[in-house]
């Protein structure tokens, strides 16, 4: 029976990996991801999960081990955060370039210096271009559910790409939430066994990760880009079927109270739920505002974003990462670019905040929406404005 239990989100993610029947977990512990891999290690040690747990000496080795296990067709899971993801950075490109469907939970955390173990999206944005499918989750249930979706999407023959599930460090990983922990039977119905089409096999030798001279590299990258872009169809299909089986439906962008709104705020991750409360409060006061919760980060949902903003006047984008010396928030800059060629488009106002674990409260999001609307009205938009910084 499906049970709804109060459980720490990290532990629910570990249970999801177990229910996904992973074959190999290769991971190195790092705050705030630790509880996920600790639990998996205990499950393997106790025999509850029939898998190999590879206790590697670094994240570089963790991801390298994942390459090997995914290459033989084993269902492969890992998790990391922040500096750990930076240490495995070069291997992330190999995973996508070799089209290996590894699933990685990322407990989003700020990057040093100064040392910060707290959450933001600096680590996400530093791996933006690594060619992985990347999904932000808003709460614990989404984190749990999307582990299954990630395997289903990544292992699909039409995709064969690694998938990151981004869950905010501490604000999600370390909170106890009521989560429906699903039955094995239902999970098995949704998630077929992994059948990698060209695994390493002595009876059918292949060469993986070979040299790509100039007369082939461009074609390989074009193929990789096309498959990542077109994976959106498979993602939509998987989310639809997930909803049909489990009753919870997901979409690239969640439009929250957008009906009739002329001003929309865009956020991603756990902050979206706080922002929803701000929208509720402002709606109660008679303001026609709404929220776009961005779930699908790669492939970037161009069509859905253009559709969502076609009738609005102002789009305020709140980023939890900063592109130093550049356009400010990475999400805002991509959204702006996605809208640039349209004849009719909203004014786009960017804010950067919530860095290194800094809380943005309900009142904070209200202030962001009000300030963003005022800036758009005055026509004084700049690249971005930093929110909540002491002057």
């Amino acid at each position, binding site marked *: 029976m499906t049970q709804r239990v109060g459980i720490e989100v990290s532990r629910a993610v570990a249970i999801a990996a177990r229910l996904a029947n992973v074959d190999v977990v290769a991971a190195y512990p790092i705050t705030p991801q630790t509880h996920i891999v600790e639990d998996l290690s205990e499950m393997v040690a106790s025999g509850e999960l029939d898998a190999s747990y590879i206790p590697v000496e670094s994240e570089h080795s963790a991801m390298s081990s994942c390459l090997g296990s995914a290459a033989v067709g084993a269902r492969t899971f890992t998790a990391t955060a922040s500096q750990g993801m930076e240490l495995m950075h070069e291997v992330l490109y190999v995973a996508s370039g*070799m089209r290996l469907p590894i699933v990685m939970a990322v407990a989003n955390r700020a990057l040093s210096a100064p040392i910060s173990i707290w959450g933001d999206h600096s680590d996400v944005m530093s791996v933006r271009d690594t060619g992985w499918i990347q999904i932000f989750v808003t709460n614990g249930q989404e984190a749990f559910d999307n582990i299954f979706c990630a395997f289903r999407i990544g292992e699909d023959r039409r995709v*064969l790409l690694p998938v990151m599930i981004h869950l905010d460090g501490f604000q999600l990983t370390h909170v106890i939430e009521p989560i429906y922990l699903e039955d094995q039977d239902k999970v098995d119905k949704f998630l077929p066994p992994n059948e990698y089409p060209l695994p390493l096999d002595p009876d059918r*030798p292949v*060469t*993986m990760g070979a040299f790509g001279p100039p007369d*082939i590299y461009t*074609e390989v990258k074009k193929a990789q880009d096309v498959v990542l872009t077109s994976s959106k169809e498979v993602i939509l299909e998987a989310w639809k079927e997930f909803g049909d089986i489990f009753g919870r439906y997901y979409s690239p962008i969640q439009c929250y109270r957008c009906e009739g709104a002329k001003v929309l705020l865009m956020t991603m991750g756990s902050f979206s739920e706080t922002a929803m409360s701000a929208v509720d409060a402002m709606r109660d006061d008679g303001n026609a505002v709404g929220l776009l919760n961005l779930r699908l980060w790669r492939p970037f949902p161009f069509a859905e974003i253009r559709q969502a903003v076609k009738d609005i006047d102002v789009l305020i984008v709140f980023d939890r990462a900063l592109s130093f010396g550049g356009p400010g928030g990475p999400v805002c800059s991509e959204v702006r670019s996605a809208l640039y060629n349209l004849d009719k488009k909203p004014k786009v106002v960017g804010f950067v905040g919530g860095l290194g674990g800094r809380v943005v409260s309900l009142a904070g999001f209200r202030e962001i929406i009000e300030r963003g609307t005022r800036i758009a009205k005055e026509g004084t938009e700049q690249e971005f404005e930093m929110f909540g910084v002491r002057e």
Partner: protein
Amino acid sequence: MTESEGKPTWQQIEIGAIITEPGSARQYQTGDWRTQRPTYAHERCIKCGLCSIYCPEGCIEPNEEGYFEADLFYCKGCGICARECWTKAINMVEEE
């Protein structure tokens, strides 16, 4: 588009550029990197085979008469054989 003849399009690339044919590196003509070519003075060659041992490409073998010569399909023209040859039987010349 130039020099596309016989080379795969992006649609024809195997998943992750996996190579399904074992030993296909044999088809890779590294000889077209070459700017210098080895020439041989057989009267000085003592058939010791050191050039073959030092060749990083592994493309030097004895011919029918036992003289060691590079396979120019693979020889990159690095000149290591000429440098290592005891009797100075190998001389590098510019490719035309």
